Each structure stands twice: as structure tokens, then as C-alpha cells.
């Protein structure tokens, strides 16, 4: 293992490694700052740049974008009260009030330090935990893989905001889109409508950029007039001893919580940051300060969401299974580069496995440096006029998609999925389960059929194998438990109403 870490640091500390981590972290921060644009868009827009790059360096770049976007999201939450995505919503609760009190600089400093601590604690745990899980996963057969992926999908659906039925519909549709193209086992053409462009299926970048970036662009269009009015006076970034003392406890606690939640499939940053905010408020000695500019209330969600962002790399790197929409895009990026993540990654491509992990130590330091002294300059990106920003984002989406197959058919598909993404957002269908199901779809179908080939068509294989069976049981429960709880709550309210 130490040999692996050593290889990783060699990659990450090479000149190119440092440059790519820096570029990634910087772009991630900048894109993440723009309200409405989240990490999925940030990563997807950067993917075309990595075509033809060495996969190890490409991954360093993407990882930099990924956690850079998590840092950047805090800035727009604090300065504009406009979170880039749901995971930085709790940051606005206390960050924006602080900015209004003229303490924007302090708020940014607290967010940056809490993010740094969350990210760093999490990466240490990732270093210890990922290889262990990868070794365990080596014994997994197709039945276990299928069950594991199903569990990830079920969990992301039951954890997503709003109706679980809608989330499951999104996931099913995503899986259906994945079945388009030539079937790998039999060579049958499925749902191609005789169109040669669909033989290889739809590229994940089309879906990711369409469902997320293009749909986000349309909401930016509606809000195009709200640019530029942010507090440009940041005030001092310096924290005094008392403030540091107040943030220490919540930051350390919630970094750990964030990591654990991040490792769970389907959970991720949003749940981590909300949960951490609620728990800190509950255990705080001064809960009345929460929502009015509490330091603990700002530090907790930032530590937790960065902890979770890093934690979700555990299943991605060791099992090859993303637990969230964002890591699903990372998986897609890896596959584009010709790398299949999974338990074998650690042994077959130690430079990628350990390079990414090592780069996160450096990335967090770079981000702290970027975010503390440079934040007043970086936050100027918020001044770019919205109309210009909108057209530039569309151009980046178009370039990215064109680079996949060099034909305009994919571009029309991009627009098509942009429209679907827009309607999904309008009718409150979460898009992340669709993206995750689309990316896992192929693998899930292959492993299901392999498992059934082994068992000669008998479904008993999923019951006989203890790991597969317990994973399936968990996925079943994550779906059933909320339904029963809802139903019982309804019964209770009915009873209460009846009794007056």
C-alpha cells in the first residue's frame, strides 16, 4: 500500500500533475461560483479538454474540478444567497446573513477553512478505506455487482428531494435510454429506429450536458437580469481566536459525518450538509444564533459537504460504482479515457488510483490558497453579464458534445435532452437518478445476464449468495420503508383529524 501511495505522490507532485490539479481546482472554483451551475456541469464541460490526455493526469484535472466546484459553490451562497446546487443550500443559512452584516470576508474564510478540513480528513480516510474495500470487492461476482448497483440506484432515488415515485421513474427512464444501441451479448439492434448514429448508443456526455448544463442554462435565462448586485466589500478575512474556537468542534465532527455519508451510495453532499446543519443546531449551546450568522452553522455544512464529496470517491475508485450524479459523471469521464474503474483499478492502474488520491491532498491545499487570498479577485466572475455567460456555456456544451463523434446528430440530441431536462426540473423529476441509471444501465444489464448465465437462468443465484442477497434486501428496504412511513403518517393525521 505504501508503495502505491508513493507512486501516487510521484504522479501528483510531478510538474504536469501540479499544473493540472491547479487548473482543475481553479476552473472548478470559478464554474462552481456561478449560481445555478453545479459540479456536474463543471466536470462535463471540462471532459472534452481531456480527450487524448494521459488518463492519470486527466483524472487529476477532473478531480480538481470536482472538489473545486464544491469550494466555489460556497462563494455564491455567501455573496449572492444563490447556491450553485442543493448541497450548498445550508451554506446560505448563515453565510448570507454574515455577508449582510459586513462579514463576507470572514464567512468566506470560515467556509474555505471548514472545506479544507473536511476535504483533508476525508482524504486520509479515503486512503485507508478504499484499498480495503477494493480488496473485498475482488471476490464479487456478477450477482453481487448487480445487487450493489441496484442498491445505489434505489438509494439515490429514495434520498432525492421530492417524490420517490418520480425519482424511480427517472431512474427507469435512464436505464431505458441505456438500452438503446447494439446489445453487447447478442449483437441485436435495440431501439435504434434504423438510425446508424444510435448503433453505439447515446453518449453519456450528451445526457449529462443536456440534463444538467442545458437545463441549468434555461433557468439562467429566466434569471438573466439578476446579475452583478452582490456585496463587493468583503471586509477582513482574518478570524480571531474565539471564532476559530467556535468553528473547531463542528468542523471536525461534521467532516467525519460527511465522509461516512459520502461513502454510502446515493447519499452524498446534499444530505450530509443538511444533516450536519440540523445536528449542530440541535447540540449547540446557542441554537438561536443559527440562521442569523452563526459560525458553527456555516462551518458545519461546508465541512460535511466537502467530506462527503471526497467520501463518495471510495465506492467510485474501489468498486467502480458511483454513488451520486456527480461521481457518475466522473465514472463516465474515466470510461471515455479508456479506464474501467473497479476493484482491479488499484492493481492495474496504481498511478490513477493513487494519483487521484494523492492529488486530493495537494488539491485541498491549493484550494485553500486559491480561496483565501484570491477570493476577492475570483469572485469577480460573478460580475460577468448573464447573457454573455449563457451563450458561452452553450458554446462549451456544443464543443464538448461535438468532440465525441464529430457529427451534428449528437448536437441535436443534446438539445433534445436539454428540453427533457428542463421539463423534468419543471415537473420536479430529479435528474440525478436518470443520469446514474443511464451510466450504470449497461453494466447492470450485463452483470444481471452474466449472473443468470452462471445459474442457467435461475433467479436463485441472488438468494444463495449472502452478499448479493443482503444488498438486494437493503435496496428493497430503502424503497419500502419510506412508503410505509408515509402511509402511516397519513393514517395518523387522518386519525387526528377525526378526533378533532
Amino acid at each position, binding site marked *: 500500500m505504501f508503495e502505491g501511495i508513493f507512486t501516487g505522490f510521484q504522479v501528483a507532485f510531478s510538474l504536469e500533475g501540479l499544473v493540472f490539479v491547479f487548473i482543475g481546482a481553479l476552473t472548478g472554483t470559478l464554474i462552481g461560483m456561478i449560481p445555478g451551475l453545479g459540479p456536474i456541469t463543471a466536470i462535463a464541460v471540462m471532459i*472534452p*479538454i481531456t*480527450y*487524448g490526455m494521459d488518463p492519470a493526469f486527466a483524472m487529476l484535472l477532473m478531480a480538481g474540478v470536482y472538489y473545486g466546484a464544491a469550494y466555489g459553490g460556497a462563494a455564491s451562497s455567501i455573496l449572492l444567497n444563490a447556491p450553485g446546487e442543493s448541497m450548498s443550500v445550508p451554506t446560505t443559512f448563515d453565510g448570507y446573513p454574515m455577508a449582510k452584516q459586513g462579514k463576507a470576508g470572514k464567512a468566506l474564510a470560515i467556509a474555505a477553512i471548514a472545506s479544507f478540513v473536511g476535504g483533508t480528513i476525508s482524504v486520509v480516510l479515503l486512503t485507508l478505506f478504499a484499498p480495503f474495500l477494493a480488496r473485498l470487492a475482488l471476490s464479487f461476482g456478477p450477482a453481487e455487482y448487480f445487487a450493489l448497483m441496484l442498491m445505489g440506484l434505489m438509494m439515490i432515488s429514495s434520498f432525492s428531494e*421530492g*417524490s420517490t*415515485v*418520480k425519482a*424511480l*421513474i427517472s431512474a*427507469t*427512464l435512464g*436505464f*431505458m435510454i441505456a*438500452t438503446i444501441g447494439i*446489445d453487447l*451479448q*447478442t*449483437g*441485436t439492434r*435495440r*431501439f435504434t429506429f434504423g438510425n446508424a448514429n444510435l448503433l453505439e448508443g447515446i453518449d453519456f456526455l450528451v445526457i449529462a450536458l443536456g440534463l444538467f448544463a442545458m437545463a441549468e442554462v*434555461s433557468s439562467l*435565462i*429566466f434569471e*438573466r*437580469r439578476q446579475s452583478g448586485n452582490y456585496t463587493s466589500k468583503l471586509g477582513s478575512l482574518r478570524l480571531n481566536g474565539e471564532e476559530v474556537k467556535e468553528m473547531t468542534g463542528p468542523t471536525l465532527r461534521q467532516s467525519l459525518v460527511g465522509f461516512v455519508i459520502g461513502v454510502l451510495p446515493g447519499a452524498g453532499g446534499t444530505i450530509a450538509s443538511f444533516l450536519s446543519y440540523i445536528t449542530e443546531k440541535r447540540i449547540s449551546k446557542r441554537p438561536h444564533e443559527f440562521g442569523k450568522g452563526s459560525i458553527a452553522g456555516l462551518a458545519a455544512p461546508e465541512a460535511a459537504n466537502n467530506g462527503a464529496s471526497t467520501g463518495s470517491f471510495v465506492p467510485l475508485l474501489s468498486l467502480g460504482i458511483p454513488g451520486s450524479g456527480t461521481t457518475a459523471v466522473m465514472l463516465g469521464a474515466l470510461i471515455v479515457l479508456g479506464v474501467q474503474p473497479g476493484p482491479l483499478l488499484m492493481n492495474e492502474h496504481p498511478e490513477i488510483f493513487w494519483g487521484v488520491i494523492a492529488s486530493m491532498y495537494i488539491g485541498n491545499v491549493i484550494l485553500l490558497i486559491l480561496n483565501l487570498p484570491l477570493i476577492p479577485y475570483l469572485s469577480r466572475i460573478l460580475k460577468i*453579464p*448573464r*447573457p*454573455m455567460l*449563457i*451563450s*458561452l456555456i*452553450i*458554446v462549451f456544451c*456544443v*464543443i464538448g458534445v*461535438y*468532440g465525441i463523434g*464529430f457529427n*451534428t446528430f449528437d*448536437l*441535436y440530441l443534446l*438539445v433534445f435532452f436539454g*428540453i427533457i431536462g428542463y421539463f423534468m426540473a419543471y*415537473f*420536479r423529476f430529479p435528474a440525478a437518478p436518470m443520469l446514474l441509471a443511464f451510466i450504470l444501465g449497461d453494466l447492470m*444489464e450485463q452483470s*444481471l*445476464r452474466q449472473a*443468470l*448465465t452462471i445459474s*442457467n*437462468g435461475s433467479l436463485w443465484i441472488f438468494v444463495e449468495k449472502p452478499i448479493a442477497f443482503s444488498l438486494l434486501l437493503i435496496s428493497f428496504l430503502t424503497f419500502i420503508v419510506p412508503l410505509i412511513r408515509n402511509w402511516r403518517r397519513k393514517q395518523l393525521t387522518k386519525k387526528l383529524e377525526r378526533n378533532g
Partner: protein
Amino acid sequence: MFKSANKKIAVFLAILAFSYIIASIRLPAYPYVPVDSDAVPISLGFILLILSILLFFVKDNHQRDKKLPKKEIAVILIALGFVLVYIMLFEIVGFVIATALFILTTSRFLGYRNWLSNVIVSISVPLVIYLLFTQFLKIQLPQGLLPF
């Protein structure tokens, strides 16, 4: 009958699921595998069918956002039109010219008033991207009418 949005969407999804199942059943059979290529799609179709029935009976428990004013819908449709024209021109006139025109017109249409900086951005951004992609990243973008 279809009062809420959920019910309309549910019916639409049920029709989709149904046609998907039909299309899956009609896939050619391949006799040498225990699980043929239609098994997963057929199951997915039925899952979607069940979910759409569930959706039909689920209440819309969130308040619908304020309806968008007609003018805003027009804005987004016209912007969509610009994107489609951009894609059509993409391979014909080439990346640089199509992109320059797209940025210029779309930014102006969405309310960017400063002509001078709009022109500067519209010309410099596509040129820089083009050179970056074709020279450094070795990814070809359509050259179109330009000589380089």
C-alpha cells in the same frame, strides 16, 4: 379527468412504457443465450408501467411555481431557435464563424447592450478556443469557410 399535471404525465409515461414493451417483444430472438436481449427491456417496460400507475394516484403535494409569463416562454423558444440555427451552421460555415455569430446574437438578444465588448468577446473567444483545441489539444473542430 386529468386534472393534475401528475395524471397527465402518468398517462404519457404509461403510453411510453406500453410502446417500449411492444418494441422489446418484437426484438429478434437469439437462441444461444439463457437471457436474451429483450428480457431486461421488457422488465423495464413493466416497471415503468407500474410506476406510472402509482404516479397517477399520487397527489401533487407541492405548490406549482407561478406560471411563467408568455413573454418568457417566447424568449426561451427563440433562444432555442438560435441554438438550432447554430448547430445547423456549425459544420457548414465552420466553428469560428458560427460561434462568433451565435455569441453575438444570443448575448444581444438576451439583453447584453454593450456592442463593443460583445463584438470583442464574440470574435476572440471562438478564435482562442479554436486554436486551443486544434493546436494544443489536437481535437479538430470544423474549419468551414476559414482558410486555416
